């Protein structure tokens, strides 16, 4: 048993974090949600680092590492609030030509039942991948009549409303669809963990500098305890996400679906609660557009809706507890 990253894994995280800070600073990515705001060359550079092929075999052009390395990379991407279809690209890099290299930009959506589809990153994408229980379809962009949302909730994430989602060419079976959902869920959880840590760091930095009543507000226990709770939520969530990532590659150690569902619950709670705390610690400034605190919150809201619903995850875990107790 070893649930602690080795030096190579930590170096991988640091490389992604440095690149994110350098190429995707928030003052640049804030306009990524606008029409024409997406920087395809920065995306290609991200791809050149191997980001989307971490767990693909080297024979397929990937880096040849495991699911856990992908998890660690997405943790750093989440912490850096890196924009773009990170999950779609990572899931499809082995299947859709050009995605691995960053030349083809994919969008992904779970086919909704009786609802319109809200698809993030569609306006910048070259191909749409639709997942349902039967498998994975590739739908040509030209066949879709989408309406761009003028004011996406997260300014870094463009959203398109698609009322009629046509069928496309099937490129993956039900097994692959399930594997994508599981991996997509864990990677979204990994991004949520990174997000939760970064929003906490921002708030901790502010609490050390901001003075009221003649002293740094971070010296007050009311603030300390809020931030200590944030730290605790992140570490608890990180543990469960790492365990879920390992469990995908070692399915004999635990129930994979319970591990993934639990990781999502913990990671979503950590990200949304820590981002709320981050806004609150910043005071009135935290409620402004200008301060980044709200960007973490809004990205967290997107990530927690991907690949299933949190309440359904909790219900799945409860049924597993009852069946295995």
């Amino acid at each position: 048993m070893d649930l602690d990253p080795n030096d190579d894994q930590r170096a991988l995280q640091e490389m992604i974090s440095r690149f994110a800070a350098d190429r995707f600073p928030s003052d640049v990515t804030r306009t990524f949600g606008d029409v024409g705001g997406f920087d395809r060359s920065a995306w290609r550079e991200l791809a050149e680092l191997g980001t989307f092929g971490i767990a693909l075999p080297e024979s397929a052009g990937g880096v040849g590492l495991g699911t856990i390395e992908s998890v660690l990379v997405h943790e750093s991407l989440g912490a850096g609030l890196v924009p773009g279809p990170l999950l779609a690209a990572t899931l499809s890099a082995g299947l859709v030509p050009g995605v691995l290299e960053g030349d083809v930009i994919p969008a992904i959506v779970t086919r909704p039942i009786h609802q319109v589809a809200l698809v993030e990153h569609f306006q910048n994408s070259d191909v749409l991948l639709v997942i349902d229980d039967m498998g994975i379809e590739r739908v040509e962009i030209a066949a879709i009549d989408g309406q761009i949302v003028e004011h996406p909730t997260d300014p870094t994430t463009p959203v398109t409303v698609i009322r009629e989602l046509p069928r496309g060419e099937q490129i993956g079976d039900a097994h692959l669809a399930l594997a994508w959902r599981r991996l997509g869920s864990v990677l979204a959880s990994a991004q949520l963990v990174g997000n939760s840590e970064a929003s906490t760091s921002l708030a901790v930095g502010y609490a050390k500098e901001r003075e009221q009543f003649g002293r740094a507000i971070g010296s007050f226990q009311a603030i300390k305890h809020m931030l200590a709770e944030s730290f605790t939520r992140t570490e608890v969530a990180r543990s469960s996400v790492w365990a879920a990532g390992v469990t995908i590659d070692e399915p004999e150690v635990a129930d994979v679906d319970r591990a993934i569902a639990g990781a999502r619950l913990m990671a979503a709670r950590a990200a949304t609660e820590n981002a709320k705390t981050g806004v609150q610690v910043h005071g009135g400034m935290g409620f402004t557009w200008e301060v980044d605190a709200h960007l973490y919150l809004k990205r967290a809201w997107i990530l927690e809706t991907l690949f299933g619903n949190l309440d359904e995850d909790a219900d799945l875990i409860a049924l597993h507890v009852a069946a295995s107790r």
Partner: protein
Amino acid sequence: MHLRDSDADAAFRADLHTWLDAIVPTLPPEPDPRDWPARRIRDAQWQRLLFDAGYAGINWPAAYGGRGATPTEHLIFLEEAAAAHAPDVGVFFVAQMHAGLTLIAEGTPEQQAHHLPGILNGDHVWCQGFSEPEAGSDLASLRTRAMRDGDDYVITGQKIWTSHAIVADYCEMLVRTDPDSPKHKGITWLIVPMDSPGIEVRPLVTAQGSAEFAELFLDEVRVPVSNRVGDENDGWRVANVTLGFERGTGFVSEMLDTTNVMNELVGIAQRTPRGNGTAWDDIGIRRDIGYVAAELDALWAFTKRNVSQGAKSGIAMGNGSAFKVAYGSVVHRLGDIALRVLDRSSLSFDDVNGEPTAAQLHGKLKGFAVSLGGGTSQIQQNIIAERVLGLPRER
């Protein structure tokens, strides 16, 4: 990173599993939780069985009579013991988890030779005399005085929250030996035999209805200087070795036991009529259990992570404070769900209708033992905020 057992770990687990399967069904029924002398006898029997089977002092070095198990084997032991519903460390908590390890780290060869065998084989129960009525969260302000008199220390003062004191043979005690130094610098760690003249033990009944704690009144209690562990006035550092153990692995077996309590609660809910079905048909109950189960699973992963880190860095459980804060919170939430399932059965602190409802109420109240004992959740949050996040101290 991996979670799979190595071949050696799998073999350790299989042997342990076989032994537990054979031995646990032969144990006598659990005594009344309020009957501490009976609990001591039961816990000592279990400790003796562990000793004879080579599992006593599982994480102690072999040179000191322990098994010298790896940290991973220690976790496997805790996991398998909980799964088999084996007794936990019970009244030997302080001896096994604090005193023994402190003596190994800081004691003299004579102290080790005199005390470690009795801890390992279940002969000697220890209690902890750290807190005082005026020194709780601010432990370093303790005032119980030990004056040097020849080859003895003479101790006068008062201790509180002394777990298992009514059945203990020894007390690991912090005393003030230099009242003129800054508060952390004048403290000494002593071994105090509980049959020493001048000690009065007054049982302190908890909200669970059991005298788990006691107050100790010390009136000129004489202890030889050879009972000092570490140097005079160096007791704060020695004590922090012990507190590190408490915030580290000390709560892992309890956390696994809480998973058993949760599983039992699901069984009770499935058998409890509610509306046209059972309490388990209530989506609200199920969903809340789902969240608690997710958090307990996460805390088990957190434990493995901390042990993995500790095995590399040599620092056991660096995230101990965060673990304890999170665990305290989840025990309280599980207890809240239990009260909703129990409904009117919560009026009885004895089992109702043959259902194991009392254990659920004990579990509910145990939440306070976790969120208060060994440093309150709020003190742990101060530690996280100041030592990990680097926020400025209040004063």
